[in-house]
Every structure is written in C-alpha cells, then in structure tokens.
C-alpha cells in the first residue's frame, strides 16, 4: 500500500505547489490523480519516487518511508517502482529489447550495467514481457522506429522488468490515439488486477479516469479536494476539482493599442 502523508513541496522561495497532500493507493487498484493543469499532479508523482525532492511529509510504501532512504536504499526502492511517461522516454537508438532490459539496472552492479551484461534468464524474461504487451516481433527494432503506442508499451515492459510493486504513470496516454489509449489502459488495469500492483496514474481525460480507475484523487492548486471511489465522482465533485480551470485568463486576443 502507498500512503502519502502531509506531503509538502515548495519550488524556489514561495511557490507552494503541494500543500498537506494526503492520500492512499491500494495494490490491485488503479488510482487516478486528476486535476487542472498546474495543479501539482506531476509534482506528486515525481515526489513518490523522489525524482523531485519535496519539503516535508511522509511517503510510505509498505510502511517504509521513501523520504528517509539514503542513496543506495533509494536505488533499491526505485528498482521496484516502475515509471512511464507521456513521451515514453526510451533510449531511442537502442532496440526495444535493450530498453526493456534497462529495467534491471537498479539491481545490477555498476560494471554489469555499463557493459550490458544480462543473464540468459533476464533476456528471456525481457522477450516474454515484450510478447506480453504484444510487441514480440519488434524486439530487435530501434525504438525511434516504433509508433507512439508501441513505444509506450515498451515503456510498460521496461517497468515490468523491474518486478515492480507499483507503477507510476504521468499522463501515459496524452500523446496517443483512442485505439492505443485503450490498449495501454487495458494493460495497466489488467496489471493491477492480475499482479496486484499499485497503479498510480495522472490523467487529463476525466472519462478515461472514471472508466478505468477504482480510486480517484482530485487535486486543485496543490491541495487534495477529493479522494474516494470513482463511483462517488459526480458533477459536483468534478466542479470542485476543476474550479477556476474553466475560466481561462483573458487571452491575448484583445487589441491593446
């Protein structure tokens, strides 16, 4: 179980991006964080694996506080937290297979990692994972020759190669067409159910969030304004989450002089 307690983040001097953020995410469930642009979704997700250093609070993954971990502990913790991104962030000249194998880096010695010394078992597993996400035939293809949806699935396979307890997804479908969106979201939901993973996902699309998530966390201006099962989300809740966001600032259309 992931438990975020009183998380606080200030960028620079006084830009308060997260204020007293509390929520939980359960294994076997898809938890979606929704909220207007700039609300702090990315900041939360990146604090969870400490890509961003927050300013206070607790982040408990199975009762271990990630924030207290030292460098080598953090590396071990990160090894079991997968992460996928809006723009995939694969190493583009490398093959799909090599990118999936990168999922093992957190468990490898510096030397073995640098020289790409992977065991036969690891290679077999990577291939099996690529098959699982439906990309077996693309294993030896350069990643920049794959479509967006395919790259995202390589990203998922890389995360799975980590034997994760949890997968963090920062707008994983924002650059995908409806068909790829469905494939990716189906895979994520299935992973939560079958492997009992914690899936924590930032989403812009409310309909997708309501369709796929079991648990919804709504955030506005760095504060949690809703947390509950997706069935409990109604218009009133949505209004609360997205308030102000519906009134864009006066656009620069006016002829000022």
């Amino acid at each position, binding site marked *: 179980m992931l438990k975020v307690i009183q998380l606080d983040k200030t960028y620079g001097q006084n830009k308060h991006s997260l204020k007293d953020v509390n929520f939980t995410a359960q294994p076997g469930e898809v938890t979606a964080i929704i909220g207007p642009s700039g609300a702090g979704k990315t900041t939360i997700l990146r604090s969870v694996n400490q890509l961003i250093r927050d300013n206070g609070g607790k982040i408990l993954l199975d009762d271990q506080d990630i924030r207290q971990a030292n460098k080598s502990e953090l*590396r071990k913790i990160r090894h079991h937290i997968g992460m996928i991104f809006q723009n995939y*962030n*694969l190493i*583009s000249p490398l093959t799909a297979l090599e990118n999936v194998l990168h999922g093992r*880096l*957190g*468990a490898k010695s510096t030397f073995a990692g640098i020289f790409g010394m992977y065991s036969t078992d690891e290679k077999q597993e990577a291939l099996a994972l690529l098959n699982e996400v439906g990309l077996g035939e693309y294993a030896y293809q350069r990643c920049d020759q794959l479509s967006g949806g395919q790259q995202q699935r390589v990203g998922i396979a890389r995360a799975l190669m980590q034997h994760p307890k949890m997968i963090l997804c920062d707008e994983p479908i924002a650059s995908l067409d409806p068909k790829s969106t469905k494939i990716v979201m189906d895979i994520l939901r299935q992973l939560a159910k079958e492997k009992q993973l914690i899936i924590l996902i930032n989403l812009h699309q409310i309909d997708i969030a309501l369709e796929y998530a079991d648990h919804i966390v709504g955030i506005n201006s760095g504060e949690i304004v809703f947390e509950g099962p997706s069935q409990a989300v109604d218009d009133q809740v949505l209004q609360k989450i997205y308030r102000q966001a519906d009134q864009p600032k006066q656009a620069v259309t006016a002829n000022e002089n």
Partner: protein
Amino acid sequence: MKTNFQSPQQFFRQRRLRLGIVLAILLVIYGVSMVLVNFQTLASLMQVPAGLIWLFKNFIPTERSISYLGPILYQLWRTLIVAVSSTICASLLGLILAILGAKTTSPLPGLRLVIRFGASLLRNIPVVAWAMILLFSFKQSDFTGFLALFFMTLGYLTRAFTETIEDLDGEKLQALQAVGANYFQCVFCGVLPEVASTLTSWVLYMIENNLRDATLVGILTGTGVGFLFNHYFKSFRYDAAGLIVLLIAVLVICLELTSTQIRRAIA
C-alpha cells in the same frame, strides 16, 4: 524589438526598411575597407586569369614529378597519422570533459564553468599559434604538430560534445534514474547511446579538418607533407609541389567520401 503593429503592411514595411539599412551598412563597410587597403576590385579581378594560367603552367605535375611520389606518399601518410591520432586522443578526453561539463550530466556545477572556460580558451587560439608556442618546448617534430592539433581539437570537440549532450532530453535520463540506475549507468546506458552517432559525425568532421590543418602546421614544425611542400616550393620544384596539392586534395576527398559512408551507416 517592437511587437505591436497596426497592420501586416506596416510590419513588412519595417522589415524591408531594416534589410535595406543592413545592406547599405555592408556596402559602406566594403567601400571603406577597399579604400583602406588600396584594393581595386576590377583591376584585381582582371589579374585572376593570368595568375591561374601561371599556376597551371608551373604546378601541373609532369612525368619528372613521379619520381617524387615515394617521399610524398610517405610524408602524406605521416601527416594523416598525426591528424587522425590527435583527433582520436582529443575526442576521448573531450568526451570525458563534456560529460563532466554538460548541464544534464555534470556531477558538480562548479566544474561546468571551469571546463567551458578552458575549452573556449583552447579553441580560440589558432592552431598556427599553438604550433609556434609549442615549438619552443618540443622543437620541430611530429609531436609538436600532434600537440598543436590536439589542443585545438580538444577545445573544439569539448564544446561540440557538451552542446550535443545538453540537447538531450533530460527526461530520458530521469527515466533511467527512476529505474534505479546510478550515475555511471545513466551515462553509459542512456547518454552515450543517444549521442553516439552525432559525436561520431563530429569526430569524422574534425579528422577531415585536421588533415588540412596538419599540412599547414607541418610547414611550421618541419614535418610531414606540409614541410615537403614548403621544401619543394622554395627550391622551385613547382611540379612536385603541385603533385602534393593534388594528392592532398585526393586524400581529403577520399576521407570525406568515407566519412559520409560511415555517417550514413550509423545514422
């Protein structure tokens, strides 16, 4: 710069006006410098054909020049070795410096400034000046030429490599960090594969460039094909000197063709 315009016409009128002013300024600068160096454009242009004809008459290799082929090829080979080895050594060190100095991969922010400054210092001293300075300590030898090219190339490539690495999307490295990769793994599994083909292009370009510079430096350091050219030239053996120019051109073209092939293969 002004960003508010009443109408597109006004915007483009201003554009044209600016272009006109720039052209006028260039013309004036040209005129003034012509007067200063006492250079008469037309008269000098008229002399070009005559000069070319003289060059052709004297520098065209004849059967006699074939006897020079042996020593020329040997010195050409040495010059090539100096150019290639200095570039390879400079690119290895340059890569390390670039990784330490690039914003995305620098382990110490302070290091960045030092490396930037050092690289720009190395790069901005012309290779001929390097050769003349180094002549004091290392006398006339291939090694002096090697060092001169090495320093200039190091400055140049460190800068180019740094910029290539900084252009890399930092999120890709964060993705590896998120997997639990440590610093060296991020560099070797992420940065290097991403930049490898661009860096190779730079290195190939520098080899081509350094072959030309090595010839020049050779005149100063008394080594290689540059020295031989100078030697034949001063002893009025223009046909042999012409043969050297021809062979250098052939070598440079071969080098360019090869590197184009390599670049295409790795792209």
